[in-house]
């Protein structure tokens, strides 16, 4: 293959590259809002930080946003995660497994940790929302 033919690019699936080039639900929500749960996972020195936010009405996630510092698969994994949590109940979203993300994006083995991080981000955002709700109920 000649380089100027340009494909295939890296070991990434078309779906992953599509998410990277057109990330869904990019942005931020007001983390002080009682309706919003925020999960921030990873660390700069590890090369991955994901911030995933959910907006909840009742027990349903009505909106989600993300910002990610990380490689292409980290960005794609978090983009996909926001797409998947929208419209689900908190319990349904909490049940999302990283392996589903691996499968959907065809992540290469060295990138599986990106999907783990995305799962943790979802759980962390839900837990943040619930602890806010519990604090409000007690206060």
């Amino acid at each position: 293959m000649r380089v100027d033919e340009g494909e295939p690019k890296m070991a990434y699936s078309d779906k992953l590259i599509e998410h990277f080039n057109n990330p869904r639900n990019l942005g931020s929500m007001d983390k002080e809002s009682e309706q919003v749960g925020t999960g921030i996972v990873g660390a700069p020195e590890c090369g991955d930080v994901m911030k995933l936010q959910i907006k909840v009405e009742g027990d349903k996630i009505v909106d989600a946003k993300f910002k990610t510092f990380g490689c292409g698969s980290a960005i794609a994994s978090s983009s996909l995660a926001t797409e998947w949590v929208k419209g689900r109940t908190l319990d349904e979203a909490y049940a999302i497994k990283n392996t589903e993300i691996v499968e959907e994006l065809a992540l290469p083995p060295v990138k599986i940790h990106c999907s783990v991080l995305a799962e943790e981000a979802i759980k962390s955002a839900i837990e943040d929302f619930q602890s806010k709700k519990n604090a409000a109920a007690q206060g």
Partner: protein
Amino acid sequence: MSIANEQPFRTPVYFDNSSTTRCDPRVLEEMLPYFSESYGNAHSRSHAYGWGAEKAVDLARERVAALVGSKPSEIIFTSGGTESCNLAIFGAARMYAEKGKHIVTTAVEHRSCMDPCRALEREGFEVTYLPVDQKGLVTPEAIAAAIREDTILVSVIFGNNEVGTLMPAKEIGAVCKDKGVIFHLDACLGLDTEPVHVDDYGIDLLSMSGHKMYGPQGTGALYVRRRRPRVRLRALSLGGGQERGFRHGTLNVPGIVGMGKAAELCLESRDAEKVRLTALATRMKDAFFAAMDHIYLNGHPTQRLPGLLNISFNYVEGESLMMGMSTVAVSSGSACTSATLEPSHVMRALGVGEELVHTSIRFSLGRFTTEEEVDFAVKECLDAAGRLREMSPLYEMVKEGVDLSTIEWKHD
């Protein structure tokens, strides 16, 4: 129609000359006959095919010798920089093991030098890995202080392949001469722009790579000093006695011819290329620094390979930045681009923070890089970095005035 088609150059534009350089067309042209009509074995002494091949190898040897100021008989052809470095380090260590079993090297060597040193430790040698400063330099004084009674070899990289810092090879050579220790310089990068002369620099062993100086891949050379002192090596393989018994095996005649031509071209253009590459890289660096905040040049600001720029774009991870600028061919120090997920030992030795290692991009310019390509690459990179910073939660926090070092990160 894509914009790329309107460019006066082909995309992706090539900014990875420290990985490999394009074989110069003049090199290729000189090599071609040795694949077809002139196919002799340089070791065949009984017929014209062999004599022709030997003559071609002799000329190449003269040309490589001229580049580094040695005698032709002191040049050993190898399969590349890795083999040259392995032969120099294993060969000298095993030959002089009875004299002593201590080696001095640095923490920023290429793996083709570092890993042989590690292997020698398992053979009972002791190795001192000298730390470098934040610019990637080791001082001649530190080398002198590390040399002991039983030190037999000092091995130092010349132009660093990751950050571009040029070691003070001449001063280190003087220390080694003074102490009577063999000095190996890994000069796989830098011979196309720096006037390295084996006598002026006090070099006993000098590793070279053909494909990093516009020659063919699979070619290299090792300079082995023959006089004052005569350096001997234990060969890595056994066979037909070629290359003074240091490197057995039928010579790669077309490759050697190419390496010779490449050396000749480097010698011709060396001083002018240094000026031209310095100007181009400065143009590139200045454009980045004028347009973007929170970016850092890694390595030494001035004492460096003129064509190599290693820049950290803070808050943007390196692999994603490379994906975002797919029209530019570069390398990254980010662990995410490597199979092992291990961040660079070189950047770590310089004390570059992990978060900046993850955000580093290496642009390496070369003989065929043009000003238009530089401007194009800068624009593509700035666009991608800007887009990714908008995606970066770290950049968002910094903009909000959060000090990232105060945050307790949630990770395993």
